[in-house]
């Protein structure tokens, strides 16, 4: 091989001409890489990190009924964590989170399983999946409020039950109750469970199911030994979605419980409406820490990297 045909030999033959040009090219390439990363970095910085920093800063401020005082005091945290109301509210929010998580997980898995394994044609799969998203064509609030004429004292369900003679008087716990809150949340959030699980199930090699059958597995054994373990990452992602959504929810709790139940986010909103921003900020930091811990715990249990 000759020296001219050997690319690494070129800079040595022309040391002064090519080296600065190469450096410039390398700089150009790294600048291009930074430019490509810039939009997302700017958006995350301006709309996530900066507000978060603000909230953390404000949570240490002092306040009275009319004003905020930039300061560094721990009173907000002490009041938040020292109050029995906070603990009860957190407990109530966790209760919603657990019940809604279990229900959305069970329903979401079965819907996704049906879509992925029982609907054979890809067109039908896509059509049915889009049908699942139809409720999202209306706003959150409308979907929630539309439960009121269904569940109300003189609503569809109660009228039907009374007319059919199943119950003597309208059932009171259908609306403005924990039942109503959970029902609305399951309705709102199940799709967040269906989508990631469906995605995971679609990636399962169908040959694995055949291999399991070849090894003598029954349908139930295929489900418990092959499909469920492999669906875990999707379940984990869905769980993160649902848990964070429920933990941050205030409007569903307020509307569907008729103001009789509280959640952490609702408590924060009330504090904000009383202009107690530092207290709300401290509450937000605590909630954020708890949710991040929950997510970290989920990620420890299930490896979701394969899905990303």
């Amino acid at each position, binding site marked *: 091989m000759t020296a001219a045909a050997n690319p690494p030999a070129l800079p040595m033959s022309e040391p002064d001409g090519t080296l600065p040009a190469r450096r410039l090219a390398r700089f150009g390439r790294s600048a291009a890489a930074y430019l490509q990363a810039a939009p997302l970095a700017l958006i995350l910085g301006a709309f996530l990190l900066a507000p978060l920093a603000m909230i953390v800063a404000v949570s240490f401020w002092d306040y009275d009924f009319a004003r905020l005082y930039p300061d560094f005091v721990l009173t907000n945290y002490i009041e938040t964590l020292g109050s029995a109301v906070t603990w009860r509210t957190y407990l109530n929010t966790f209760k919603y989170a657990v019940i809604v998580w279990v229900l959305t997980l069970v329903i979401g898995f079965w819907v996704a399983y049906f879509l992925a394994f029982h609907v054979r044609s890809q067109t039908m799969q896509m059509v049915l999946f889009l049908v699942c998203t139809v409720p999202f064509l209306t706003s959150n609030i409308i979907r929630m409020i539309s439960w009121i004429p269904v569940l109300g004292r003189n609503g569809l369900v109660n009228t039907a039950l009374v007319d059919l003679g199943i119950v003597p008087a309208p059932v009171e716990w259908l609306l403005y109750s924990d039942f109503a809150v959970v029902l609305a949340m399951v309705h709102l959030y199940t799709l967040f469970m269906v989508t990631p699980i469906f995605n995971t199930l679609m990636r399962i*090699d169908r*040959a*694995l199911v*055949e*291999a*399991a*059958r*070849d*090894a*003598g*597995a*029954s349908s139930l*054994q295929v489900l418990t*030994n*092959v499909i469920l*373990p*492999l669906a*875990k990452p999707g379940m984990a992602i869905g769980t993160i979605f649902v848990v964070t959504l429920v933990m941050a929810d205030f409007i569903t709790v307020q509307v569907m419980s008729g103001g009789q139940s509280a959640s952490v986010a609702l408590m924060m909103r009330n504090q904000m409406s009383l202009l107690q921003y530092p207290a709300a900020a401290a509450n937000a930091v605590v909630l954020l820490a708890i949710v991040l811990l929950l997510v970290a715990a989920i990620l420890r249990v299930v490896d979701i990297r394969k899905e990303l």
Partner: protein
Amino acid sequence: MSKAAAIDIASVTKVYGSTTAVHAISLKIPAGSYCCLLGPSGCGKSTTLRMIAGHESISDGDVRLGNQVVTDLPPARRGTSMMFQSYALFPHLDVTDNVAFSLKMKGVGKQERRRRALDMLELVHMEPYAARRPAQLSGGQQQRVALARALITDPQALLLDEPLSALDPFLKVKMRAELKRLQASLGITFVHVTHSQEEAMALADLIVVMNAGRIEQAAAPRRVFEQPANAFVARFMGDHNVITGRLSSRDERGVTIAPAGGRLFSADGTPPDADEAIDIAVRTDRVRIGPASAPGLGFTGVVQNIEYRGSSVKLTVAGAGVDDFTAIVSDADFFAAPVKVGDAAPLAWNREDAIVLGRLAS
């Protein structure tokens, strides 16, 4: 180990909607033999294997394994075990649990099934990797694990769907030898689907050449090689030149045909139907460069391509009426009197190296 079972396929048909993938094929695979289903992609070989395994329903006909009709039995109750093309190892289980999977399904205790899985891993020399996940193994290692998983059910027949196609050429040859050794030591029936002639020749006791859902020839490798049943088999196996022409004359040994182009070619054997066009086949490796010893046993064509293959040289020659005629001559013969691309080269062969082919099934 377990007793090998013969596989008897009786006019089995597979219909998908309006297309027929397998047309009433019948085949007897003797117990303890190594059978290769060979054919181009889409010829129905994998479907046939999957019907034997029970992963594909049988539209018509019956499959018998040993003395038992297994047509409507689920895969696990047929006494067969399948090794999948992509190995289909469970990614969430380690190697031992993958191998022990069928025992777990049967409810065998954890200690017992791990012990038996380790025994099986020893058979395929994979016990050092027992605790790894499939993703941490190379292709060849995954294949051994898949083999161990298939064998732990103690099958009477092992069904392998293109087991070597995912491996690199070097490993392919190595694993091929191991499959053969394993089959010999276990003594069970192996049915192996492949599209590689070389693989089938190297492994099989019985080669089944399939095309468009039909069996073209089912015979021992030597017979498939030396006496391909028809033009498809001859072309697919690649060791013969096929020449087609009308019958010109007969003699006591065979026939002389006249393809388009005005030449005459002689071949041994009896044509199936003298009224139709007759296919004859000429062994590529018996063709030499030189004048023909008798009329009808050679022609002169223009060299189109020359491939040096080490111990031999492959020439592609075209003459009037004969395209892509392949001649494989030894390197010594070639370099004694070399020809170049574009030269006119006389080719010749002996009478016994040209044979009459049967009609194409269809």
